């Protein structure tokens, strides 16, 4: 080998180095893409499961829970209300609902950018959930829009016309639910704590949006439509508490999708929400049972399952913000408060909220939304940061008592929107088709008079 050849060889290491750098960069980029894809796969798997779990809460969960509580002649009509909403709200959501709730719009309602789901596809929407397809986010939120109006149906069970249900629910979704969902969760919504709301209000999975709106609307419906014939002198015992029991257990399981799914990913926050949800339900079941036992002398099965649902309702807004022990406190308080609402307050005022949609969801949602302002902590949810990147204090336990005021404002807005909106919608529905079935149809039972079927054909 001569000198010249040696000089040429001396260039080799530099060339190899340059080549290696380029290779390394490509490798890093590949790796980053692989990590992103892996996270997206994990998050999306959890979100699809959660979406299915939330749908399971409406059918069969709520349908069984409510179906067992009504009289035998109305069980199919009651289940039909839940099922119809699974279909009706889905269509409405695809056409305009998702856009009105999650389009950017103004502080109160979304715009029409996602009309007919335009542009909602496999690419993530970074504002809402950066690691899952926009479609997953859209379908997860749809399941919430389905169960919320289905909850109201408990108030007018056994006496509302089916045509009136279709009109009422369509208008209710448009006038109450989509705007409320936008205000709390939509980008730029008035109460959105994370996306530029003027009054930051913490509602992790729908204490205001789902439970207060449905519960308060239920109360307005019960007052407007009036008592069932014979209430409260005639016996109106639940016709099958076994159905209600199965329904309540399905609700409990489905609620893991509702709350832990609201983390919008398979994260530590999802685990925390999962734990809080479970603990809230357990403590509330005991709270209701204890109150009932002391007051009536017997702990009932209906009391235990009703209590657990109250706890699930109350922990919903708090689930992504509170530690496990505060979750127990929130659940227990909700169990006792809701029991007193249905067993004492309802009897005193004499309104016929047939299946206690207000006593459970209105009262439980309000308790939960307010207590979220007490127990929310950045040790659980550090998404809100100051300019230096330090997590901001969330609730009273973090030294931010003002949050309770914000929560109260959120509660108040939900109450007013639901009450006024529902009253107007009932008036419109009444003028269009009439809300209540004829007296003889009510006596015959809605299964036969509205749907031409009977649930239990033992002779067949």
């Amino acid at each position, binding site marked *: 080998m001569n000198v010249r050849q040696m000089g040429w060889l001396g260039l080799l290491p530099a060339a190899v180095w340059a080549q290696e750098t380029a290779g390394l960069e490509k490798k890093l980029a590949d790796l980053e893409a692989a990590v992103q894809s892996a996270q997206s796969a994990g998050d999306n798997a959890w979100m699809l499961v959660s979406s299915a779990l939330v749908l399971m809460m409406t059918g069969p969960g709520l349908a069984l829970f409510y179906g067992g509580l009504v009289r035998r002649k109305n069980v199919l009509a009651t289940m039909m209300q839940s099922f119809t909403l699974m279909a009706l709200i889905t269509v409405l959501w695809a056409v305009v609902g998702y856009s009105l709730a999650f389009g950017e719009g103004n502080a109160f309602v979304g715009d029409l950018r996602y009309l007919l789901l335009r542009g909602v596809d496999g690419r993530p929407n970074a504002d809402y959930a950066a690691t899952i397809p926009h479609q997953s986010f859209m379908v997860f939120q749809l399941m919430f829009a389905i169960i919320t109006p289905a909850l109201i149906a408990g108030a007018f069970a056994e006496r509302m016309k089916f045509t009136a249900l279709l009109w009422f629910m369509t208008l209710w979704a448009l006038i109450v639910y989509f705007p409320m969902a936008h205000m709390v969760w939509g980008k730029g919504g008035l109460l959105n704590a994370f996306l530029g709301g003027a009054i930051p209000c913490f509602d992790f999975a729908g204490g205001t949006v789902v439970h207060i709106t449905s519960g308060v609307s239920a109360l307005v419906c019960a007052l407007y439509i009036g008592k069932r014939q014979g209430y409260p002198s005639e016996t*109106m*015992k639940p016709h099958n508490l076994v159905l209600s029991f199965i329904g309540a257990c399905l609700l409990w399981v489905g609620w893991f999708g509702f709350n832990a799914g609201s983390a919008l990913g398979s994260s530590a926050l999802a685990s925390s929400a999962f734990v809080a949800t479970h603990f809230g339900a357990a403590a509330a079941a005991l709270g209701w049972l204890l109150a009932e036992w002391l*007051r009536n002398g017997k702990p009932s099965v*209906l*009391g235990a399952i*009703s209590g657990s649902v109250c706890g699930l309702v109350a922990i919903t807004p708090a689930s992504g913000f509170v530690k496990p022990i505060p979750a127990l406190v929130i659940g227990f308080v909700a169990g006792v408060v809701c029991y007193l609402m*249905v*067993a004492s307050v309802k*009897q005193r005022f004499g309104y016929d909220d047939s299946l*206690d949609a207000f006593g459970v969801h209105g009262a439980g949602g309000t308790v939960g939304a307010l207590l979220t302002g007490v127990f929310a902590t950045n040790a659980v949810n550090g998404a809100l940061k100051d300019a230096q990147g330090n997590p901001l204090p969330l609730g009273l336990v973090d030294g931010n008592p003002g949050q309770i005021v914000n929560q109260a404002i959120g509660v108040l807005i939900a109450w007013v929107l639901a009450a006024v909106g529902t009253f107007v919608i009932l008036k419109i529905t009444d003028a269009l088709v009439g809300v209540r079935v004829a007296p003889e149809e009510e006596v015959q039972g809605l299964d036969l008079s509205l749907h031409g079927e009977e649930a239990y054909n033992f002779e067949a």
Partner: protein
Amino acid sequence: MKKIEAIIQPFKLEDVKEALKGIGIDGMTVSEVRGHGRQKGHKEVYRGQEYEVDLLPKVKLEMVVPSSRAEEVIRTVIQSARTGKIGDGKIFVYEVAEAIRIRNEDRGEAAL
């Protein structure tokens, strides 16, 4: 002929049937009924809403027997259905004008 109508506690039905079989009575009609005499009902509470359930489940046995055997049947029912507590039930006895077997038109005690 006499018709003996006994309203008894549902859980005593098997004992009564066995005892009647023991004295050779095996024709009877049984129905599940609801009612109450002096026995008080019970209270049920659903989410604080109280219901007094005063019509309790009972079983009604109906038999038509020759007049000569009526007293024996009545004694048998009493012995087998009695617990000594309120709610044991009652027995009513009626005169029967005629009995007819539909299959072959036997009449009177022959039709029993």
